[in-house]
């Protein structure tokens, strides 16, 4: 009986050492996380932030977008809306919707499954808005884009204090990023 107790005590003391080893190991393990406000994660290559426009080759100010409306139509959350005009028109005169941004399908002329304009005339993008508060990051727009004009941004640190701050003007963002010196629309 007493031998059993002695054995149990030695086992208990050993378990204390094991506990010290566990906590001591945690004490000296290297950090895997960063102190966010002062440091930021650098490895964002696999991060899927909100979508952004890809600039055309050789012209960082112009998006690669061909305004085919496929992204607008395929989006299950209906969070993309864009405006364009042809060179003959004044900017914003061609396909004005001018109205409710939160429901782009109501006012946009091309959102009710109309096919995109068949002619090959040159089109100029006026605005490309993303309502990020509706977006579910499903990636269908990126997949369906025939010109590879949309990609996921690496904007991991997007914060806002209102719903409006998640209504992103991606065209302005593209131009801001292309023009050094101007404050960027969002960190990325």
């Amino acid at each position: 009986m007493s031998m059993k107790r002695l054995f149990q005590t030695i086992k208990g003391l050993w378990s204390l050492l094991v506990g010290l080893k566990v906590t001591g190991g945690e004490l000296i393990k290297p950090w895997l996380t960063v102190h966010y406000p002062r440091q930021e994660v650098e490895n964002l290559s696999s991060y899927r932030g909100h979508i952004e426009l890809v600039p055309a080759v050789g012209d960082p100010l112009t998006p690669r977008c061909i305004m085919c409306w496929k992204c607008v139509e395929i989006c299950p959350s209906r969070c993309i809306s864009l405006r364009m005009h042809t060179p003959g028109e004044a900017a914003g005169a061609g396909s004005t919707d001018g109205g409710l941004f939160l429901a782009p399908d109501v006012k946009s002329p091309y959102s009710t499954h109309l096919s995109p304009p068949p002619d090959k005339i040159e089109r100029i993008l006026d605005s490309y808005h993303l309502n990020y508060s509706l977006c579910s990051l499903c990636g269908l727009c990126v997949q369906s884009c025939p010109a590879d004009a949309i990609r996921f941004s690496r904007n991991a640190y997007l914060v806002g204090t209102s719903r409006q701050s998640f209504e992103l003007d991606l065209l302005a963002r593209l131009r801001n990023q292309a023009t050094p010196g101007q404050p960027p629309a969002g960190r990325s």
Partner: protein
Amino acid sequence: MTAQLLELLSHPLGQMIAALAAIMAFMAVNGMALQYAERKVAGFIQRRPGPYEVGPHGLLQPFADAGKLISKQLVAPLGADRLLFWLAPLVSVAPVVVCFLPIPFSPLLTGMNINLGLLLILAFSGLNTLALCLAGWGSNNKYSLLGAARAVSQSVAYEIPLLLSVLAVAFQVGSLDLAAIAASQTQGVLSWNVLVQPLAFIIFFISGIAETNRAPFDLPEAESELTAGFHTEYSGMCFGIFFLAEYSYMVVVCAVATALFLGGWDGPVFPGPWWFLAKTFALIFAMMWFRWTFPRVRFDQLLNVCWKWLIPLGLANLVATAAIVKWVQ
């Protein structure tokens, strides 16, 4: 002027007063530094950064905390025994200053050279129990009273193995003078008492943790059961003083362990006091490590460990030491 000052310092009383002033300054800095270290150790063990916002790496956090504690209002609860209530923190912190006096940081750097230094430390550290008792009784609060009752029974129980382990070393060296005991172990690591008396060291360290009310023996202030135990009702700097006393007692216990078992100031290259402080704070780190590793014991377990294991082992160790000392003579 300098000559007069030196003459004043060469007098034992002048030396003691200078030592007391230095000790109080050390205690204040030590309290802040250890509080920071404790929170950092806790944080790192729990995979979080600990204090980080005030100053670089949270270095100014202790100053912010000290400022907060000092500026808070001191409130005595209704129905408290005001005299005892306000007396308790002072009774807690005053003896610990004396406890630092005989600690030999080096052969020269000793506050007071007396040949009964060990006895003085043991006697004055016992007063802390009285302070916790006063705090618990004076607060007019059931949690405080329960905490005080636990503190008393715990301290009474653990003082016995503590004394037994200290006595074994005293038998072996034949002195109660900490400086003499430390001086007997200056022939390298192999002469340190931790290798000669390993059992006494383990008993001393466990009892020391219990005497300073540190986890896993922190039953007098068990948060989950007694809110904060004996200092439940203390606000502001009164709590701060208890806190300071606790951390100073930690230093005293670890410094005595260093002098008794770890060779005191013995060490290569660097001057003696640095070695003494390094060993002391290494032991304090071990105490913090224990705190954030082991869960709090139950009260019956606490007393069982003391009465059924530490005291018999301490007695056996003492008897064996006495027999060997007698045989060698």
